[in-house]
């Protein structure tokens, strides 16, 4: 079972993510979007989207950078104060992300709401897997700390063994079930990436930094009577 979950699943997920991801980008470029529902939303979206996206971005970066530069991460976590600061920042970001995700899910669960009416089955699957992923990560941080330290000696060698095509799961085989759930849902999300709104992950809106202000014209009923209302948005 470990070989299935920690060797086959990661390879299948990565090959599909890259292969189908490129295919979709080339064949259906206009589907590379998260299908924003911003215009349908009330303030609730702010309390979901902002915490979730800031939190998950920083946490994902911490996981990736530690995996890419384990020696530097080991040095950072070696000092007592540095470890405490990083771990406390991590748990705070985790809870912050979880809060945002729960709000994002709750807004889609409101019966007959606009958000629910534009929710696809795949959105539901992605949100469920994300919930398990983030909740298990917070759980691991609380019940199996200091995850930042042992991550470098368990998951990171496994990732590298996968990267060099010499898979070795021995460092993760006997970890607690909650940690394994976190690993598996992480790769399930990569698997879902090319088939869902998650593709927007690789669409970095860098041009937003230098593009001019954008004039959004709202075709209001009264606009047809000659009055054009404008919203200035970045």
């Amino acid at each position: 079972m470990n070989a299935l979950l920690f060797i086959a699943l990661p390879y299948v997920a990565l090959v599909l993510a890259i292969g189908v991801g490129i295919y979709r980008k080339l064949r259906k470029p206009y589907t590379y979007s998260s299908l924003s529902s911003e215009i349908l939303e009330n303030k609730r979206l702010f309390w979901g989207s902002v915490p979730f996206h800031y939190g998950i971005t920083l946490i994902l970066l911490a996981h990736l950078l530690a995996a890419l530069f384990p020696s530097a991460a080991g040095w950072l976590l070696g000092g007592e104060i540095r470890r405490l600061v990083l771990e406390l920042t991590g748990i705070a970001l985790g809870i912050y992300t979880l809060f945002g995700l729960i709000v994002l899910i709750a807004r889609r669960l409101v019966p007959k709401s606009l958000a629910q009416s534009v929710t696809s089955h795949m959105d539901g699957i992605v949100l469920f897997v994300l919930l398990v992923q983030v909740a298990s990560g917070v759980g691991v941080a609380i019940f199996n700390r200091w995850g930042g330290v042992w991550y470098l000696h368990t998951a990171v060698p496994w990732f590298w063994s996968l990267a060099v095509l010499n898979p070795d799961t021995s460092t993760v085989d006997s970890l607690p079930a909650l940690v394994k759930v976190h690993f598996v849902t992480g790769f399930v999300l990569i698997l879902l990436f090319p088939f869902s709104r998650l593709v927007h992950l690789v669409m970095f809106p860098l041009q937003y930094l230098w593009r001019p202000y954008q004039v959004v014209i709202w075709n209001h009923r009264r606009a047809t009577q000659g009055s054009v209302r404008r919203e200035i948005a970045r």
Partner: protein
Amino acid sequence: MNAVGRRERGVLVAFLGLFLWTGGPVARGQDTAADFRQNCVSCHTIGGGRLTGPDLKGVSGRAERDWLVRFIVNPQAMIDRGDPYALKLLQESRGVVMPQFSGMSAARAQALLDLIAAESELEESQFKGLQITDRPFTTADVQGGRGLFMGVQPLRNGGPACIGCHTAKDLGGLSGGRLGPDLSRVFERLEGRKNLAAWLSAPATATMAPIFKNHPIASEEIVPIVAYLEAQASGGGEDMSAGPLIFLLIGLGGAGLMLVVFDLAWRMRFRTVRKQLVLTSTGRGEE
């Protein structure tokens, strides 16, 4: 899934087939000496005396080869069956059951027994074990061990510091890790210096073995760690600090603080589109 067509679904099904096909167990070659070092030396020596388990020098003369193979492959099954010699070994090891090792087979057990037989012939086996000092530990030993445990002094061969996974009663603050057990009384559990030093020379749990296989704790580091853990055991007790609860509360506080900060940061920004549209359309909002 709405955005993907029949062809993509075909690709998905094909890869799921590959996923299931590649899911079988992965066999790995094992060097027998490395296998013994990794899995056996934390409880056994060859000619160095008893640890948690018996000294294996000349073990082939104490039981039939076939019995030894069956015992190595599945010790618990032999005990459950009520085998008299297995029960005697259990009694001698004070109730500590030899673990069943992942991937252990009759062939691997035979290779281990061949190795033990060859090593038993030698005047001094490479698996005689670490001969730890009997002298009383000094304060410097204990402090040195605390530094290694805490990770302030990194382990020479790059192994993780104990605190990443373990706690001990004198750590204070948010205390130690919770992936592995509290080590405050491990000195008692393993019954003294010799067993603890042997354990540290090749940690045999399924989690620690693959990590320390490539990053063994140096023998000069084992002495201060044993000194620290011996000092922890004196006086009894375990880590009863409120570290985990404080950790959670600080995390909740930090998340709450971030919500406040983002609320303030967004005060002057456009945070909801629909509300503005509704207000404008009904003539109640700003143009």
